[in-house]
C-alpha cells in the first residue's frame, strides 16, 4: 500500500498511508473509533478504490481472482434470510466445495452445530459473528481480514476463535485484523499499525509498541485504556 488517500465528498478519510504487510503474520490495526481502520481493511481487500496512491498484492493490482483467495469478516456481519447451514452452503457453493460434511465440520469448529437449522436472522450477536467467521473460513483464504470480528463474543468463544485464528496463521495464512480488546491484541498481534484520524501514526512490533509507544496519539490511547481498566476493576 503506497501513499494511499481516500476522499469522500471532499473529505479526506485516509491520508497518505503507506504500509507493507508480510505473509504468515498477524497484523493488527488499532486506533480510536472513526480513525479509519475499517476503511483501510476495505481498501486492502479491494472493496474501495483509493482516490490516490496504489495498492498491490505481491506486485499486482488486486483483481477478482486474487480477491477470491481472500476473505473478510465485516464489522457488521450480513446474513441471508435463511438457515445458518444455508448461509454457509451459499459460500461453499461459490467456491465449489459444497459437501454436507464440510459445512457441518465448519459449524462444529465455531460451535454452531446445534444451530444449523435455525434461521440466521434469529442468531444472537455473538452467534452471528461466529457464523461470519465460519463463512470466511469456508473460502479457505490465503488472506483473512477480521474487522472487530470478536467484539460480541463471550470469553469462552473468544478463546475458541482466537485458537482458530492462530491455527490459521500457523497454516501460513495471513491475518489482518482490527480489534479494540487490548488483551486480545497482546495475545494475537505480531505487529501493530496505529491509525489516528485517517493517518498511520505508528507501526511497530507488538511488544515494542506496548512497552514504548512512540506517537502521542498512541500514548494517549493506551493511557486512557489502562486508566479505564483500573477504574473498572476498583
Amino acid at each position, binding site marked *: 500500500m503506497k501513499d494511499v488517500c481516500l476522499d469522500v465528498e471532499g473529505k479526506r478519510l485516509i491520508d497518505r498511508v503507506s504500509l507493507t504487510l508480510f505473509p504468515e503474520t498477524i497484523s493488527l490495526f488499532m486506533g480510536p473509533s472513526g480513525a479509519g481502520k475499517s476503511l483501510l481493511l476495505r481498501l486492502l481487500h479491494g472493496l474501495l478504490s483509493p482516490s490516490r496512491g496504489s495498492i498491490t498484492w505481491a506486485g499486482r493490482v488486486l483483481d477478482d481472482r486474487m*480477491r477470491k483467495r481472500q476473505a*473478510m469478516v*465485516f464489522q*457488521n456481519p*450480513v*446474513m441471508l*434470510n435463511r438457515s445458518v447451514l444455508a448461509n454457509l452452503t451459499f459460500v461453499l457453493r461459490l467456491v465449489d466445495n459444497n459437501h454436507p460434511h464440510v459445512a457441518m465440520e465448519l459449524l462444529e469448529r465455531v460451535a454452531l452445530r446445534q444451530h444449523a437449522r435455525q434461521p440466521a*436472522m434469529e442468531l444472537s450477536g455473538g452467534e452471528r459473528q461466529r457464523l461470519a467467521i465460519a463463512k470466511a473460513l469456508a473460502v479457505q483464504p490465503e488472506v483473512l481480514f477480521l474487522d472487530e470480528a470478536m467484539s460480541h463474543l463471550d470469553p469462552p468463544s473468544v478463546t475458541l476463535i482466537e485458537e482458530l485464528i492462530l491455527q490459521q496463521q500457523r497454516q501460513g495464512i495471513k491475518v489482518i485484523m482490527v480489534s479494540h480488546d487490548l488483551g486480545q491484541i497482546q495475545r494475537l498481534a505480531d505487529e501493530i499499525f496505529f491509525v489516528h484520524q485517517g493517518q498511520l501514526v505508528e507501526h511497530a512490533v507488538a511488544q515494542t509498541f506496548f512497552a514504548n509507544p512512540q506517537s502521542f496519539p498512541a500514548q494517549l490511547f493506551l493511557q486512557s485504556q489502562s486508566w479505564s481498566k483500573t477504574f473498572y476493576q476498583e
Partner: protein
Amino acid sequence: MTDLSDVFFLAISLVLSGNNDLLEIVALSLRVSLTAVGCAVLVGMPLGAAVGLGRFPGKNIIVLFFNAMMGIPPVVVGLFVYMMVSKSGPLGWLDILYTPTAMITAQFILITPIIASLTRQVIEDLHQHHAQQFRSLCVPRHVAILELLREGRTSLLTTAMAGLGRAMAEVGAVIIVGGNINHLTRVMTTAIALETSKGDLALALALGIVLLAMSLIINSAVMGLRNRAPSVIGTVS
C-alpha cells in the same frame, strides 16, 4: 330501519345462495384484476430490479416518474386508455374499447408503476445491505440478482398483493374503458356504482360484502407475510 335490515338480509342470502349474476360479476372482477396483476408483475418486477441495481444517468428521473405514477387517479388512467383505444384514437383499430381487454390494460397501467417502484425499493435496499459481502465473495452478477430476488421474496409477494388490492378496488378506470356492460364488462365496483344509483341496494350491498371480504383476505395475507418476514436489516448493532 326495517328497510335497511331487509336489504342486508337479502344481500346476505344473495351471497350465500351463490346468485348467478353475482358469481359472474365476481368471476370477471377476479379475471380482469388477476390478469392485470400478472402482467404488471412480469413487467414491473424485472423493470424495478433493473432500475434498482443499475447505475445510469437519468435514474433519479425514472424513480421519480414511477413514484409519481403510483398515486395517479384511476379515472385519469381510464381517460388516457379511452383516448388511446376509442374509434378515433391511435389504437382504435385494436377495437378493444368496452371489452375486458381494455379494462386489463387500464389496470395494468395503473399498477405496474406501483409494482416497479416497490420492487426497486426492495431490491435497492437489499443490494445496499449485501453489496460488500457479495463483492468480497466475488459473487457473479446473475447469482447476485437471483439471490436478492430470493431474499426479497416476501416483500415482493406483498408488493403484488398491494397491486391486486388496488386493482380490485378501483372503479374509475374500468367504468370508463369497460362501460359497465352487463354480462360483458361489469365488475364488482362498477356494478356497485350502478346498482346503488338504480336503487337495487341488495345486489350492491351483496357485492360490497364480497369485495370487502376479498379485501380483508388480501390484506390479512399481506399482514401475515409481513409478520413472518424478519427485518431486512439484520446486523450486529
